[in-house]
């Protein structure tokens, strides 16, 4: 593994995992806000 | 600062003395109750014996009849089955009380939560000691090895390690009784707590197997002792939150 590949892999792992977490969070928030709207109606 | 009057002091002493004897009495009663229950279920004791022998046999088949390197594996060979016996025993602590519904009786009884926990801990400790008494000599006989150091040191290390696991076991059992899958959650629950004590125990046993003296296993003993004291202190404060609402 060259240095460039190493740096790329490590940053990709960091940002992809953060991104995945935020997507999961976003999906959950969307779900819960739908439920909330139903309850309000 | 004035010295306290003599009379009050002795009264205080008496009260604290009573509290201490009460504590040990209560813990002793809990222990006796659990031991009586356990003796009624002899099949559990048989299953512990069988588990010990099976683990020894499988290690024997894995390593061969008279493996010259057997001392390298002693600590793993002893602690893995002891740990599994502990896991079996953890369920008998509080989870069984919850399953049988007798936990409400324990909660209502005029016993301090710490005494209940102490009784359960000693019970799990004795159960695991029973397992260790079967495992260690039989593995020494089956796999043809002996410890090259003082036997009392081996006993000390094993007893302290088991005591630590028993403390963890009693609290883990108390936590697990609230979950849906009572017994199945126990390994996951033990995960945060076990490494701090099982690693020093394994290291110390490994050193003793090749003939270490007390000075070379002192760091491990210190860590295990610190673990024990820290756990006891924390549980003394927090355990009532586990038992009561």
């Amino acid at each position, binding site marked *: *593994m060259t*240095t*460039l590949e*190493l*740096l790329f*892999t*490590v*940053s990709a*792992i*960091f940002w992809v*995992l*953060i991104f995945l*977490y*935020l997507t999961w*969070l976003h999906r*959950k*928030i969307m779900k*819960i*806000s739908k*439920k*909330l709207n139903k*309850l309000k109606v | 600062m004035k010295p306290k009057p003599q009379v009050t002091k002795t009264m205080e002493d008496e009260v604290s003395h009573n509290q201490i004897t009460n504590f040990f009495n209560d813990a002793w009663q809990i222990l006796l109750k659990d031991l009586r229950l356990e003796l009624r279920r002899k099949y559990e004791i048989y299953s512990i014996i069988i588990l010990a022998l099976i683990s020894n046999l499988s290690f024997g088949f894995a390593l061969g009849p008279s493996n010259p390197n057997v001392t390298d594996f002693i600590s793993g060979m002893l602690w893995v089955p002891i740990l599994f016996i502990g896991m079996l025993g953890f369920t008998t602590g509080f989870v069984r009380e919850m399953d049988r519904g007798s936990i409400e009786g324990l909660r209502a009884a005029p016993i301090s939560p710490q005494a209940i926990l102490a009784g359960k801990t000693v019970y799990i400790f004795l159960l695991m000691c029973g397992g260790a008494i079967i495992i260690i000599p039989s593995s020494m006989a089956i796999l043809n090895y002996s410890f090259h150091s003082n036997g009392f040191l081996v006993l000390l290390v094993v007893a302290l390690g088991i005591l630590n696991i028993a403390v963890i076991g009693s*609290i883990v059992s108390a*936590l697990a009784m*609230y*979950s*849906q*899958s009572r017994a199945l*959650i126990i390994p*996951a*629950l*033990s*995960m*945060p*707590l076990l*490494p*701090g*004590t099982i*690693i*020093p125990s394994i*290291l110390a046993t490994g*050193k003793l197997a090749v003939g270490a003296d007390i000075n070379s296993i002192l*760091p*491990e003993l210190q*860590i295990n002792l*610190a*673990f024990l004291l*820290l*756990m006891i202190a*924390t*549980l003394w404060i*927090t*355990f009532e*939150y*586990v038992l009561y*609402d």
Partner: protein
Amino acid sequence: MNMFYMIKGENMKKIYPIIIFLVNLAALYMIFLWAPPERTLGDSYRVFFIHTPSAWISYLAFTITFVSSILYLKTRNFKWDLYASSSALLGLLFCIIAIITGAIWAKVAWGLYWNWDPRQTTTLVLMLAYLGYVSFRMAINDKEQRARVSSVLGILAFISIPLSYLSTIIWATIHPMPLIPTSKLQIGVEPAILQTLLTSTFAVTLLFLWMLYITVEMYRTIDTVESVKMENVK
């Protein structure tokens, strides 16, 4: 944590992500372009600017879980339980990041993914602790019971982590690995490298706090929805 409460209003909620994005962008610039190459390791040491903050966050998150657990038991305010659970979840995430990035770097630098370095092993133990904590929380249905019992687990687990670290240090002294060069600790001598490390740690900490905030908000919303539902059923 309370930083987010200092300035209220919907607009501010939208500005925080932008600020965090800009700070992280600046940190990225410093990590990859501004910081000079290290003398012995060359450019590959830049991994530390990502790995070290993640490891730091994974320990910080567990400390937050610990403190929130104590505060929950003292005050019985569910706010603290939300902080404890959200922080544990994020700690698990950053712990996984720290372990994977550390293992990759170790493979490149020393030829082994796992070299039983005390810190590496302790981080693994920490990850297992988080996994146990999170899975235990999932196994309890009753909200009050879950908060109370998992608080005790959070406290006990936090206390036992330093002892695992001490044990792994002893383990490492018994089994010294000939592969590991001792130059690892000399990184950070140059001021520019230190400044970059501080900036990237600051950026990732901000990111973590923001993520913690929205996770807490999400769980709070879930809780209110559940309680409203329960009332409707009644």
